């Protein structure tokens, strides 16, 4: 594992913990941006260049901007009220540990000793350039590609339907936002 990979992975994990850990949603969001960028870096290191770029554009760009926009719109403070109990946290972490171990253990065991030669060959052959992926998308994954447009369309129409209200004004509530009901 190269130093760069290690650093990016460390940043990715740390920022992931940050997303979960920060009490202010804004901090979480920024932390997520860092995380997404770190993952993009990892993609790049793995040679999936197209994905790395897409990650930055789609995720860190489009999605996170949307998230931040909503966060600002709603003008939210930190999570209010009770903290999560220690028991529940411990339980959650414990369950997480079980899941982590039971997924990663067999996976790591299976892929621990891959033949180095073929692996390098494979890494080379799966250089994810725009061209290579584009070719795949427009030949083999044509149908899926078209279907993904349907996904986006649903996203658009759905958002419109939910957001648009007849005769209903978006009225900011009095006395601050969030947590008061």
């Amino acid at each position, binding site marked *: 594992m190269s130093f760069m990979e290690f650093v990016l992975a460390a940043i990715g994990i740390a920022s992931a913990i940050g997303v979960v850990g920060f009490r202010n949603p804004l901090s979480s969001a920024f932390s997520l941006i860092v995380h997404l960028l770190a993952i993009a870096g990892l993609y790049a290191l793995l040679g999936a260049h197209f994905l790395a770029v897409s990650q930055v554009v789609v995720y860190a760009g489009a999605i996170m901007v949307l998230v931040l926009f909503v966060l600002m719109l709603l003008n939210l403070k930190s999570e209010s009220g009770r903290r999560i109990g220690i028991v529940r946290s411990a339980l*959650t972490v414990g*369950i*997480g540990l*079980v*899941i982590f171990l*039971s997924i990663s*253990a*067999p996976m790591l065991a299976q892929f621990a000793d891959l033949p180095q030669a073929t692996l390098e060959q494979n890494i080379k052959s799966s250089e994810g350039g725009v061209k290579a992926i584009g070719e795949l998308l427009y030949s083999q994954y044509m149908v899926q590609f078209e279907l993904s447009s349907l996904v986006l369309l649903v996203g658009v129409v759905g958002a419109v339907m939910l957001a648009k209200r007849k005769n209903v004004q978006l009225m900011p509530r009095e006395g601050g936002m969030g947590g008061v009901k």
Partner: protein
Amino acid sequence: MEDTRLALVVLVPLVGAILSYVLGRAAPRIAGILATAAVATSFCFVVSLWQALEGGQTFSFTLSSWLSFSNIKLPLEIYFDKLSAVMCLVVTGVGSLIHLYSIGYMAHDESRPRFFSYLNLFIASMLILVLGKSLPVIFIGWEGVGLCSYLLIGFWYTNPDFASAGRKAFVMNRIGDLGFIVAMAILYHSCGSLDITVLNRPEVLARIPSEMGFIAGIALFLAATGKSAQLPLFTWLPDAMAGPTPVSALIHAATMVTAGIYLMARMFGVIELAPLVPAIILWTALATSAIAAIIAISQNDIKKVLAYSTVSQLGFMFLAVGVGAYSVALFHVVTHAFFKACLFMSAGSVIHGCHHEQDMRRMGGLAKSMPLTCLSYGAATLAIAGIAPFAGYFSKHAILESLAHAHNPYLHSYGELIGLGATAIAICTAFYMTRSFILTFLGSYRGEGHPHEAPMVMTAPVLVLAVLSVVGGLVLNHGFFTYLQGPLPPVATHSGGGILGSVLGSVPGLIGIAAAYALFIVTPAVKDQIRKVLWVGEKVSSGKFFLDEILGLLVIAPFRGLSVVVSRVLDQSVSIGTGNAIGGISRAVGELTCRVTTGQVSTYVLWMFASAAFLLYCFLPVR
């Protein structure tokens, strides 16, 4: 031989029962006449059939194939032989007289149609009982008379005590019926038939295993104790006096209560299968007879005295049964029917005349106001006391005599003792009967109002029966035992004897009468002295040996308790409770299951993760 008359013997009273109710509702007066006519007609048929009986000739009639199916043959068939003939004659004969008497006795009761309907129904049932060709058919009558007895005891049902007395009679009879059913079950499986003509054949009896034979015998006797009021099931009979007096005369003295003896006689083969059974019968009979006689001494209700006397006399009959002298027992049945019916009807006339007063302490001196009744009662008293030549003497004497000839291995060493006991009972009988006569008819009137003699329609039948009580024994004495030798085993008795024998035989009765006369008329002071000395005995006697209480404590209370316990604990708590508990538990678990759905996404995710972790943990081969 099939004979339609036989069917008519039963059907006429049955139709009479229906008609007297239906038509009687329109015209109450007609009910009694119809009912009496029906029984009388039946009597005529019986007589004509009886006349036709010659030698071994019998009649039978099949009413329905009844329980016959597959290879099982249990038709509803009635059968007329000499034994049935005797019973039928008594039932219809005495029955007619009592019906006639009832017309007068019940003249002012508004429920007359119902009464006569029941009475006729009773006669029909009783006839089925004595005519039944197989045990199930006998059982029809057996239960039928029980039902009628129940209905008639509770005739005045608005009084809950009377209604309860009826129920008591029925239930106690039912206990006895268990024995009947068990006996039928055993006999059916051992002999393959329940036909009485088949069952008494030696080769059929030989098929019954010995222990089964014993059980069957005891079971039959149990049935008889229920119906014929023997220990431990006799307490219903005194209570049964709640019914109208003609009912007591007909059912609880002359006919129904002797059904047990009839059954024993019919099934003598089974009874004698195990020698222990007659021995048990004998001891039970002796005890019953003695206890009833002792109780009778202290009773003040005239009907109660007669009731206990009936129990005591029934015990006497069973004594004869116990020693195998069935025809002697039957003889006593007949004479007893005469004099006891006469006694009851006289007592009924007294009650009627004294404005429904039954307590002898409020009577007295009725000889003047009711001479005919007094005469009949006196004659019957002498008969029951066993004074020659009255009817009771012959039968009683025959019983005492047959006791001496007992050849039961279980009784060998007690022969004299039993004879002595029986004699003592006979003395007792004479004593308390004389006492009742004295209290009722002699001395001065102690009650209210003016007693009056009963109307002719009542006194006539009483007088007829009185005459029968006087001469019945003398007339029947000669032919009776030989007549019954066909259906019943012969008895080694040549009763009556000469004049000397008669005098000697009357001694116990005379002693009793004399004692009563001495104590109640001559020296009443001595009587009080004796009562003081024997106060325990008096308590026991007037307390009826506390049999009701003992029975209540030992049988009824435990069952009541058991019933409550079973109902509360086993039923409500266990059976129903378990079902409810299962329902409750599932609801509670369901509630818990719902509680997982807290409405909060985090919890849901946590559950999802936990479940996923569980699946992964459990189902992955590597841990």
